[in-house]
């Protein structure tokens, strides 16, 4: 049934299929059974089937993998979030209704993790994207060895979360750490980066900033190179200096790209996990002695695999998803408004 509709919706393929099939069909109607025609009509039938089925066959692997390892698990996570599922007694799953969610909403640790995720997210994203914009602007000049500069700026991206965090943890150590040693030249007393609230959050954010600034700069650079140069020419004729050109030509032209990176960074920040986990060392999943850098991702891991309450972990996962959806809707509304105001 769908196939006939599809042929209607797809004039090219139906025309081709028809031209391929009709000679065989016509000859068949005349009742001549010469040997050459059997394979011919088989081939045309195969051809027609092939034209219709192949797109679905080609996209099938993605949707099978997505269905089996994302969509179905996502639904199961919702199901588990309504149950009491303990790591120590996996066979004993009892209905819990909204208990896990109620539990979360009344838990100080959940709100603390939500607040930390937000703070670290802002601390990591805002400076990162601003630095990336600046870096892209510089890379957009006609440079000697421009490829080398670009590759160098991207090397932090080659470093895994784990490797980068191990290194930064040592750089930030209280005793003999490189950062504190560097700061003492400016008369700053040694900072206990692991214990202090804002210090630890800044340290965790700096790992994210270090790893992603170059990557985002390349995305901005690509968009900058697509800006028509006559926009700059007319701005220059109007007497705009470099800074004004950057502000009034580059930034507005980059607005879609900036929004794109904001969305991607927000998604990344909501899931932040590896950096705070490894920054915490042995008791990493707690996010510091006072939970001062425990993010939602970390809180979920802690509840699920350290404490062993997988039902609650599922509820945290769904809360993260809901928060992301809210952020996405806000983003959409903002974009609409921006478009209208233009």
């Amino acid at each position, binding site marked *: 049934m769908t196939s006939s509709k*599809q042929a209607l*919706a797809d004039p090219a*393929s139906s025309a081709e299929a028809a031209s391929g099939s009709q000679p065989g069909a016509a000859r068949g109607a005349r009742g001549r059974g010469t040997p050459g025609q059997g394979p011919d009509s088989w081939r045309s039938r195969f051809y027609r089937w092939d034209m219709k089925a*192949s*797109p679905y066959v*080609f*996209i099938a692997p*993605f*949707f099978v*993998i997505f269905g089996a390892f*994302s969509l179905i*698990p*996502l639904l*199961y*996570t919702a199901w*588990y979030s309504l149950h009491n599922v303990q790591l120590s007694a996996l066979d004993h799953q009892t209905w819990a209704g909204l208990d896990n969610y109620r539990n979360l909403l009344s838990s100080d640790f959940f709100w603390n993790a939500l607040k930390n995720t937000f703070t670290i997210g802002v601390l990591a994203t805002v400076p990162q994207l601003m630095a990336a914009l600046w870096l892209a602007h*510089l890379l*957009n000049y*006609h*440079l000697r060895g421009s*490829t080398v*500069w*670009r590759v*160098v*700026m991207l*090397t*932090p*991206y080659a470093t895994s*979360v*784990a*490797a*980068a965090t*191990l*290194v930064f943890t*040592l750089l930030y150590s209280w005793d003999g*750490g*490189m950062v504190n040693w560097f700061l003492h030249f400016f008369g700053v007393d040694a900072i206990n980066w692991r214990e202090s609230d804002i210090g630890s959050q800044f340290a965790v954010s700096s790992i994210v900033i270090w790893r992603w600034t*170059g*990557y985002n700069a390349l*995305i901005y650079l*690509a968009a*900058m*190179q*697509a800006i028509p*140069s006559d926009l*700059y*020419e007319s701005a220059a004729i109007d007497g705009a200096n470099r800074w004004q050109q950057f502000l009034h030509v580059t930034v507005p032209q980059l607005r879609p790209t900036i929004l794109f990176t904001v969305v991607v960074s927000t*998604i990344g920040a*909501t*899931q932040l996990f590896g950096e705070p986990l*490894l920054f915490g060392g*042995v008791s*990493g999943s707690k996010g510091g002695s006072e939970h001062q850098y425990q993010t939602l*991702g970390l809180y979920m891991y802690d509840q*699920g*695999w350290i404490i062993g309450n*997988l039902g609650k972990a599922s509820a945290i*996962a769904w809360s*993260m998803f809901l928060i*992301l959806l809210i952020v996405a809707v806000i983003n959409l509304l903002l974009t609409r408004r921006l478009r209208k105001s233009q």
Partner: protein
Amino acid sequence: MTTSELTLPQTREKKGRTRRVMGAGKQLHAGPVTYVVLTVFALVSLAPLVWTAIAASRTDRRLAETPPPLWFGGNLFKNLEAAWDQAGLGTAMLNSTIVAGTITVSTVLFSTLAGFAFAKLRFRFSGFLLLLTIGTMMIPPQLAVVPLYLWMSDFGWSNQLQTVILPTLVTAFGTFFMRQYLVQALPSELIEAARVDGASSLRVVWHVVFPAARPAMAVLGLLTFVFAWNDFLWPIIALNQQNPTVQVALNSLGTGYVPDQAVIMAGALLGTLPLLIAFILFGKQIVGGIMQGAIKG
């Protein structure tokens, strides 16, 4: 060879054009200040990596002293050996190569097929399905790990590599990346011509799509390998130190498995080295791929 085609042919053309237009704030020759600021950015990018190597060549005791070491010591090979043996980085490197290699081959293959279908074939719901594919990129991996973990335990697959390979055999990013490339790089007339000759879809894919897609496939392969090598959340849940990937081994190091900072730094260095080498060899293509993805995305 062919991959260099990806580094934005329009860019070069534009450079030539704007050089004539002095006063336009674009593609001007960089002044000394620009080079100074870029050098600072470059130092910040590279210093932690260089310092990793310095720290890996020292002793645990030396790393706790002030001032921190600024130049290489003599313990590099001893620490690398310790990381290789004690932290299981030897096994981890082998496992990561298997995992990232399999994921890369399969992602590139399946993404090219799906990307081709979305770019050039007409079928019902194609627009909706493409939108759905893009939308799936928003779903955090955290939403899948609890059921995956429970199923894995049921199957008796704990600590086996297929648990970390299967979920990422093909990605939405790869599909979208290939679709964006093939929309402009693969002329529809070529497909039509092959069709008129009676070529089946598989023949079209083999003789028309793959040759046209090769540069983008190479770049997607590099990006996928980096992603798979560095994947963290699911591997540390699914695997442990008995059969680790590099990231799992590094996680064990970070949580006190071997309490020697110099060895930990040696481990971080070893685990990053393969990708650093890849960046030195193919940096230009990786940069081009990220920028290519950005323009069309």
